[in-house]
């Protein structure tokens, strides 16, 4: 009898092509998503070496990082460089015969939203993309992680990667979420607890009733942020909710084969006696709406908190890094978070650009007017169509939002959507790094409902008191 295994162990074991002498394993890769920023050099590498794609049918290509989000997007790509990258993706896909969803296709969107929507993301698979937020797909029980361009090329040519087994880190959150508390708040609270390097070398499995009670959208938000806790991948065991989401999606298995697949997927969950290298337990009751105040996602506090004093941290390096973050953010110790004025609000990204996020914002802003410039960018064309079908677009427009076309947008400011220097933004994205939303931009990470509340008041706001 084999010893009890975790979900991660099972997926890993079922993908070992061979154990290598060095202690690494050659791991088979089932699914590969590519976008315009991290793939051109990989295609060029293949071309130079005269190599071909081992299994072209395992690749899905979607442009997302550079695409304009304005209505005139087809004719107005913001820079020559962006256009060069977008054209290169299209050209490469044509040359190598890769399944490509163009910018003007209704299915286009952020790769991590499109993959699940198309049924490309399936439980028990290994899935990679040249983007760190590939961890998102772990919500389906897929071992999904971001890779560099050299690895993109490696997967294209060989359908494998040379990897070292990760440690198993279990993060268990149990109990019902309080009013105004969302998947995003849980993700931020977890990162606040373990730190941005807490998951380094590990794959996180999220267990507990809080996660099983989340929708697939919420689970994707949580797994998306696993990388901000340092873990290359996050996982949630697939269940009926997962299968309901997948069923009927264009690339998902159909009919009798779907039933066979479900049987297999049901065998993946961690065995009851499985051992984890580390375990963290959190009571959902202790989580309130979160907001980041610094330049790392671990710089996070409950919205009821105040800006910390660097002098209260241990170690010279830590003191210096907190001081640096506060200087960058233009904040003083002791300031109440709810007294911080924002200049812009961004709602969207692979973290919070799904239909449930759109609905959460609409519920907050319906019949009200926002007081700062705010962008709402659906994560995909299908999210946009669904939101419009539900009449949410009109709620946003009436409230004063700019309702945009799908893409990564202001999460990383590679297109024209940017925060200006020293401007402060409440953002539903995943990173508050220096310069992330534009040079000298200042980012506060929050949930969609909290971002909506900030847009209404012009200050960081406790959604529970709105």
């Amino acid at each position, binding site marked *: 009898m084999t010893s009890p295994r975790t979900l991660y162990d099972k997926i890993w074991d*079922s993908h070992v*092509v061979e154990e290598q*002498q*060095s*202690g*690494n394993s*050659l791991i*088979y890769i089932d699914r590969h998503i590519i976008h315009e*920023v*991290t793939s*051109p*050099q990989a295609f060029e*590498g293949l071309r130079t*070496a005269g*190599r071909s794609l*081992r299994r072209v049918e395992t690749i899905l290509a979607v442009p997302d990082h550079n695409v304009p989000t304005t209505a005139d997007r087809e004719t107005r790509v913001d*820079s020559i460089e962006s256009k060069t*990258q977008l054209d*290169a993706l299209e050209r490469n896909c044509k040359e190598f015969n890769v399944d490509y969803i163009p910018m003007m296709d209704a299915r286009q969107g952020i790769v991590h939203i499109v993959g699940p929507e198309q049924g490309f993301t399936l439980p028990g*698979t290994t899935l990679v993309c040249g983007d*760190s937020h*590939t961890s998102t797909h772990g919500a389906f029980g897929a071992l999904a992680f*971001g*890779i*560099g*361009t*050299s*690895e993109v090329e*490696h997967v294209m*040519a*060989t*359908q*494998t990667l*040379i990897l*070292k087994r990760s440690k198993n880190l279990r993060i268990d959150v149990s109990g019902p979420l309080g009013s105004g508390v969302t998947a995003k708040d849980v993700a931020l609270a977890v990162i606040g607890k373990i730190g*941005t*390097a807490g998951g*380094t070398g590990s794959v996180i499995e999220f267990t507990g009733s809080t996660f099983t009670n989340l929708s697939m959208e919420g689970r994707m938000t949580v797994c998306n942020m696993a990388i901000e806790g*340092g873990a*290359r991948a996050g996982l949630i065991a697939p269940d009926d909710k997962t299968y309901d989401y997948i069923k009927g999606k264009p690339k998902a*298995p159909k009919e009798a*084969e*779907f039933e*066979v697949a479900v049987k297999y997927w049901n065998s993946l969950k961690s065995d009851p006696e499985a051992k984890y290298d580390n375990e963290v337990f959190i009571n959902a009751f202790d989580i309130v709406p979160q907001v980041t105040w610094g330049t*790392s996602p671990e710089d996070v506090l409950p919205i009821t908190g105040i800006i910390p004093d660097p002098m209260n941290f241990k170690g010279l*390096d*830590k003191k*210096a*890094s907190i001081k*640096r973050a506060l200087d960058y953010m233009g904040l003083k110790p002791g300031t109440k978070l709810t007294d911080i004025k924002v200049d812009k609000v961004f709602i969207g990204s692979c973290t919070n650009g799904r239909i449930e996020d759109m609905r959460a914002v609409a519920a907050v802003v319906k019949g009200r007017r926002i007081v700062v410039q705010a962008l709402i960018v659906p994560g995909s064309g299908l999210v946009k169509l669904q939101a419009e079908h539900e009449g949410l677009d009109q709620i946003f427009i009436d409230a004063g939002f700019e309702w945009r076309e799908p893409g990564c947008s202001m999460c*990383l400011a*590679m297109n024209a959507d940017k925060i200006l*220097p020293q401007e402060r933004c409440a953002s539903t994205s995943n*990173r508050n*790094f*220096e*310069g*992330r939303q534009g*040079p*000298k931009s200042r980012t506060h990470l929050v949930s969609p409902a909290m971002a909506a509340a900030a847009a209404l008041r012009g200050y960081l706001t406790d959604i529970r008191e709105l």
Partner: protein
Amino acid sequence: MDKFTKISSVAAPLPITNIDTDMIIPQNFLRTIQRTGLGKHAFSNIRYNDDGSEQKNFILNQPAYRRAQILIAGENFGCGSSREHAPWALTDFGLRCIIAPSFADIFYGNSFKNGLLPIKLPQDIIDSLIKDAERGANAVFTVDLENLEITRPDGEVIGFEIDPFRQHCLVNGLDDIGLTMERGEKISAFEKEQKIQQPWLYK
């Protein structure tokens, strides 16, 4: 890929924690379809003033460190994005070795593919190396990957550890795609088996 056997250089101290990939190479410069030419943009947001002139306080702008091949940094170096533009920018700038207490996983892996050696050492040793490095042009370190040794400016030798396969590839400048392609038969055998187990993955 450039081989890495042994280098001797001054080391630039940059003891900031969580130096993320956005800091190493900001998003504006990711819009390239080449691997080269990013060195001038490395650390752009903290290296240059708004008018494009150099920020005098930034360590790699100081005369002693302009040609440093070694950078000594704080924990969790390279956290954030998977962009390989980060090691491309660092190597194009001239850096060949980053020494830090810890690295983010994706950056760590990307470095080896580009002839950039990331070395993990305990914080107390890093602290003493930073003291050496602060002596500037007079403090030359030697990093020897074949023997897994760093020689400090005063001659003291410190050992470090690297996965033997990564060491082998970097010392010999090997392309691991070529190595994996030699395993083609094994990969085909895996696919044959998986197709029976999970036929829906082969449509």
